[in-house]
């Protein structure tokens, strides 16, 4: 105690100086919009740089896994290509359909900031409006649903993760096509809940859950997860526990899907609502 008092006595001028200087800087930062924005921008620049560096390291450490994932994706794509070629050669017709055009456009992006331990999780990717990313685009990881873009800057975008209490997605059982709405209960990052499936149909453990085309955001049939535990609640509907395919703990490279016909469809639908 005495030491503390001695210390305070010895440096009292310095302490008064620091306090007053602190007040002045606080006033400077809060009272002037110019200084405020400079400070906020500076701090954000620092954190963004750090985030990017962390993401870089993590990518490097996960290279082996990413490589094997890419290889398996390559094989499956090659298989599909072969299947398509076969079909075409059977009918001897080479169709170049320019009228219908392309419906979805894929853009690869890297996740540079991510969280799974909050109630409202978001992740940041390293592409933005300059690369053609816009809000309301779907984000998939590998071949399973991961989230949806909610905001973009020039070079970055923020996506709402499936692991967010505010996120709702229309999803269906692959086996029989019954659809319900998918939400997260905020408890475990590996499981989500599928509601509104009526109880008169049978749901088996291991059934695949996939996206529907109702939202005009996700393409139809993107896998989400498998049924772990269909629970009959008091009401007429199941509460189905679904294990996610996407491992949000190691989200790294994602694909952003733009629905090129979304505006056309929305305009038409809005006319009748």
């Amino acid at each position, binding site marked *: 105690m005495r030491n503390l008092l001695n210390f305070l006595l010895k440096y009292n*001028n310095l302490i008064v*100086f620091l306090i007053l*200087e602190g*007040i*002045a800087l606080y*006033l400077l930062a809060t009272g*002037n919009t110019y200084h405020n924005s400079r400070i906020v921008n500076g701090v954000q620049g620092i954190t963004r740089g750090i985030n990017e560096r962390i993401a870089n390291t993590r990518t490097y450490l996960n290279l082996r896994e990413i490589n094997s994932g890419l290889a398996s994706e390559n094989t499956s794509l090659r298989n599909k290509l072969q299947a398509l070629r076969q079909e075409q050669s059977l009918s001897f017709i080479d169709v170049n359909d320019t009228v219908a055009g392309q419906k979805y456009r894929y853009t690869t992006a890297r996740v540079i900031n991510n969280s799974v331990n909050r109630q409202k999780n978001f992740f940041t990717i390293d592409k933005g409006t300059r690369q053609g990313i816009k809000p309301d685009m779907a984000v998939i990881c590998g071949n399973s649903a991961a989230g949806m873009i909610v905001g973009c800057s020039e070079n970055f975008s923020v996506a709402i993760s499936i692991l967010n209490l505010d996120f709702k997605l229309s999803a269906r059982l692959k086996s029989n096509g019954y659809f319900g709405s998918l939400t997260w209960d905020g408890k475990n990052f590996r499981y989500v809940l599928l509601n509104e499936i009526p109880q008169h149909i049978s749901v088996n453990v291991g059934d695949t859950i996939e996206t529907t085309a109702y939202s005009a955001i996700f393409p139809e049939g993107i896998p989400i997860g498998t049924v772990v535990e269909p629970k009959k609640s008091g009401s007429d509907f199941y509460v189905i526990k679904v294990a996610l395919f996407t491992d949000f703990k190691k989200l790294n490279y994602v694909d952003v899907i733009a629905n090129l016909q979304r505006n056309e469809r929305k305009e038409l639908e809005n006319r009748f609502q």
Partner: protein
Amino acid sequence: MINSVLRLGLSGILLILFQILILNNIQFSGYVNPYVYIMIIMMIPSLTPAWLLLIISFFTGLIIDLFTGSPGMHSGATVLAAFSRPYVLRIIAPRDGYESGSALSLGVYGIKWFFIYASAIVLIHHTALFFLEVFRFEGFFRTILRILVSSAFTLGFILLLEYYRKGR
């Protein structure tokens, strides 16, 4: 004692009024912005405890801030100048030290001493102030030029006022 405190307070108020009413309205290129109110910090006698000096300087700066609409800028710079004043005084102390209770003025210690004293304080204050104002290091030399030009004008005003005080 009471008399000298009153006189100090009065000249402080006059200096602040001079600053707000006249000098702040000078629109003479972006380079000339004299801030003569810093003379208040120089006039306070050497016996004053440092914490009192700091608090006086903070409120002086705050008043100027309120009238220029830039909260924190002048108070920050003035507090820094007041904090460095004891160190400046120690470095440039005359051979036989300071007489206790005497005013730190041109009349007592001579023109050479006062000029060094005033330019040190003014430069510290203006450097802090102008960098707080632009708040960036881009255009560094332009800011330095503004500091030097404004300091020269401030020093000129201060010397004039000191000669006036001495003459009375």
